[in-house]
């Protein structure tokens, strides 16, 4: 891919200023955060947010593979109405392993700890996160928690489901519940430390000129996510701790035999775990803004609305936990309130979707692989969100709760939403992270396979759930078999869709074409620095003179080219912007 450099008035001055910092060379290429040191110690004891992000990426991918494996076994088991090869107990352990790994060790940390960790300091013009050692510590906490969970799963398994409902988890279950709870507890602290780091960084580390309303929307989304992490995670931590002491020491707080209230556990659990849905979702929503802005080369329509809709989702997210308990002893009146507020969450979500569509509308959209992911995200997120309204309705929920309809709904949100967005973001920023371009054609095929396979897996589950198939059973009525077989087939395609990126992304590390600063012709601080960045991200203090997503000479790093490697045709608005910007820049310099 050739890189077209567009030099305008002011450009020479710009490069001159850069020239004062002589770039060191390593192995025939400019020094960057990857080639600056190669020892194992330089990775395991690094405080560089970019290296920690890569460490997270590797470890989280391993957990994703394990969780996916458990899902694959379940889908194989469900191809027949009387199970295939698992005992009921092993099946329970299998879906619990899938849930625990995917929620606590994949979905919650995946975007914040990898893409967020890598991009937030760069996007706001900082040299690193506020607390780099805390950042490294959070990765070790993640590993410790993950090890506990894996040991508990491999050493006998847990059959409570990922929700650890009492009194089953506290008294009756014979699995390794205690160890799994310890794992989830430690992982919670890993995400708390990440959250504190992000809140402080976004508040205090922004570059000169980077005001709140010039922040990329991904940063807004990550800020909202971090606030949820700070307020929610401690509550689930203490809740799990209470289950742990109930199980090990006999300190009984949720025990119904003493007159304790097991539903209290559900309240406290979902007080975190519903907002946790937004911990998984908001970063994904943020990524989609970046992808759409990069591929339309436009400002996101209604920037402020999209920014505040993230905050609104974070606020509403804390007020709807009761909709997980419509079928319990919860008072009817509080159920009504929870139902109404759950409907309200649709408003900020819809604001985002409509604003993305308005941004794309009549635009000249570059159909890159990440745009494929973004477009499929919009569709899947809409389906997932709208089916959520069915479940927020009290009467419909009584029919649909604990059926495959719920399973399909939250997989549309978690996989169709969060995971698709993560893959999209990974494709968008992979050249920035590694300095190499992957095979774009294969990437598009991968995106399509994921989309087709995903729908084939989970759409039948809406139908079979509506027909009445309960979740968490591997024996089902024979008339549901056709849907389950279809779902299992789709899961195979989905698996290929996930495997493909692993292959071509790894392949690109050695063989990919080298890219310049800004391979997509996008705007933002991350596109003004070399790929891969140097350890301190910026060789000189970044100064922000442009609005979020505004295409100017500086915001694109002086590089403008289309994904096909061609120059963008002359655009009058762009020229005006460039001229206005050079005047602006002089002002700032003064």
């Amino acid at each position: 891919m050739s890189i077209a450099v567009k030099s305008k008035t002011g450009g020479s001055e710009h490069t001159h200023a850069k020239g004062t910092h002589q770039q060191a060379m390593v192995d025939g290429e400019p020094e960057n955060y990857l080639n600056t040191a190669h020892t194992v110690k330089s990775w395991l004891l690094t405080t560089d947010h970019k290296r920690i992000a890569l460490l997270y990426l590797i470890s989280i991918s391993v957990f994703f593979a394990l969780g996916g494996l458990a899902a694959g076994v379940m889908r194989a088991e469900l191809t027949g109405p009387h199970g295939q090869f698992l005992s009921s107990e092993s099946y329970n352990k299998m879906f619990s392993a899938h849930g625990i790994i995917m929620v606590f060790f994949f979905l919650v940390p995946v975007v914040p700890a990898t893409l967020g960790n890598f991009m937030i300091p760069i996007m706001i013009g900082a040299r690193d996160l506020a607390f780099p050692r805390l950042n490294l510590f959070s990765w070790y906490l993640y590993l410790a928690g993950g090890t506990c969970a894996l040991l508990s799963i491999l050493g006998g398994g847990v059959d409570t489901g990922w929700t650890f409902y009492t009194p089953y988890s506290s008294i009756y279950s014979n699995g390794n519940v205690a160890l799994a709870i310890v794992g989830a507890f430690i992982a919670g602290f890993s995400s708390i430390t990440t959250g504190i780091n992000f809140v402080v960084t976004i508040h205090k580390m922004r570059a000169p000129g980077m005001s709140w309303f010039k922040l990329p929307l991904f940063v807004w989304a990550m800020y909202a996510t971090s606030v949820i992490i700070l307020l929610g995670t401690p509550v689930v931590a203490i809740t799990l701790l209470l289950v742990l002491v109930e199980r090990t020491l006999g300190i009984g707080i949720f025990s119904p035999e003493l007159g304790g209230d097991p539903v209290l556990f559900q309240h406290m659990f979902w007080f975190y775990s519903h907002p946790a849905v937004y911990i998984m979702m908001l970063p994904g929503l943020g990524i989609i803004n970046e992808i759409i802005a990069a591929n339309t080369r436009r400002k996101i329509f209604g920037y402020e609305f999209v920014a505040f809709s993230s905050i609104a989702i974070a606020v509403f997210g804390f007020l709807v936990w009761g909709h997980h308990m419509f079928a319990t002893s919860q008072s009817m009146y509080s159920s009504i309130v929870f139902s109404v507020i759950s409907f309200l969450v649709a408003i900020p979500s819809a604001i985002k979707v409509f604003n993305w569509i308005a941004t794309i509308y009549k635009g000249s959209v570059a159909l890159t692989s990440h745009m494929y992911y973004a477009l499929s995200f919009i569709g899947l997120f809409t389906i997932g969100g709208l089916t959520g309204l069915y479940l927020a309705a009290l009467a419909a929920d009584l029919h649909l709760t604990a059926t495959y309809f719920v399973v399909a709904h939250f997989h549309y949100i978690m996989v169709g939403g969060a995971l698709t967005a993560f893959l999209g973001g990974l494709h968008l920023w992979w050249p920035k992270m590694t300095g190499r371009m992957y095979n774009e054609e294969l990437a598009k095929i991968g995106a399509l396979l994921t989309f087709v396979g995903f729908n084939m897996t989970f759409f039948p589950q809406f139908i079979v759930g509506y027909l009445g198939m309960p979740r968490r059973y591997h024996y089902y009525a024979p008339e549901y078999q056709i849907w389950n077989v279809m779902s299992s087939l789709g899961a195979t395609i989905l698996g290929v869709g996930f495997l493909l990126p692993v292959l071509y992304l790894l392949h690109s590390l050695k063989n990919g074409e080298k890219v310049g600063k800004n391979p997509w012709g996008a705007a933002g601080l991350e596109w003004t620095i070399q790929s891969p960045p140097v350890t301190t991200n910026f060789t000189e203090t970044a100064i922000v003179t442009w609005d979020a997503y505004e295409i100017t000479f500086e915001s694109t790093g002086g590089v403008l080219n289309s994904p096909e490697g061609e120059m963008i045709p002359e655009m009058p608005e762009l020229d005006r912007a460039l001229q206005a910007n050079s005047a602006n820049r002089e002002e700032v310099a003064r």
Partner: protein
Amino acid sequence: MSLKTADLKSAGGHGETHAHQRLNMQYENIDQQNECYMVGMWSFLVTEVMFFGALFLVYALYRTMYFETYLDATKYMNIWAGGINTVILLLSSWTMVMAVDSAQKAKRSRTVGFLFVTIGCAVAFLGIKSGEYSEKFEERLFPSRSITGKDFDYAYATQARFHHQGRDIYVDGKLHPTEVEDGKPALIADTNPIVGFNQNVAAAKPGEFYVTKVSGEALRARRFNDHARIFFSIYFAMTGLHAVHVIIGIILLGYLIHLYWMKRKCVDDYLTIEMIGMYWHFVDIVWIFLFPMMYLIA
């Protein structure tokens, strides 16, 4: 490229006032660094508030449900021990403030002295607390046999503490008969064995599950016993978690003494001691809420 680039230090422009403070590479200047530390500490304290907040919710819910039991069970709280502990913690908060103040005024020996007093208070608190705990263990007021080897037994505690003093026992607010046969309280004799906490269900003999014939009074007494067990579960969970925080505080204070006494830390960098001071005040405040809620509600 080194992570601790020295030339960034000059970027601060506050070199005179903070000459000895190390500026980490990611910050523009020393003020930004200090502000980051403080915002980070406050954020952490927010998570701590939520952490304990959930427990206070549990406390409040069960207090509403089992108000009578709460009132009755409070009489096993040792108000003197709790009161002295409150005074000790308040004193330690004051010495902590004085330590921070001395650090800010660059008085190293005063700082170390106040830190030692603070740590002494913390240890004294834990000592008194463990005395209270062992008292509860002996009176069979720990919620299960996991630590003490004896089941929770409210009637036993009542006997042990009040019978010999000739005081009456109230169950559900009503006078309860306390005849004793062979040294065993009447409550136990009335109650059929049931499968308790964390006992293996399979180990129970058939028929043991069911309370075949229990008088209304005995049933009430057993419910009362169960509810009291919830109260003491909450008591041990909350004070136990608080004690864990005190222990962490002692470790942090020890670290400070190490910094100021042995490593002779540059005294004008007081961010560390100020942050640990904030943590210590938080631990103190939690106790300020725990004390009236556990000890004084009767």
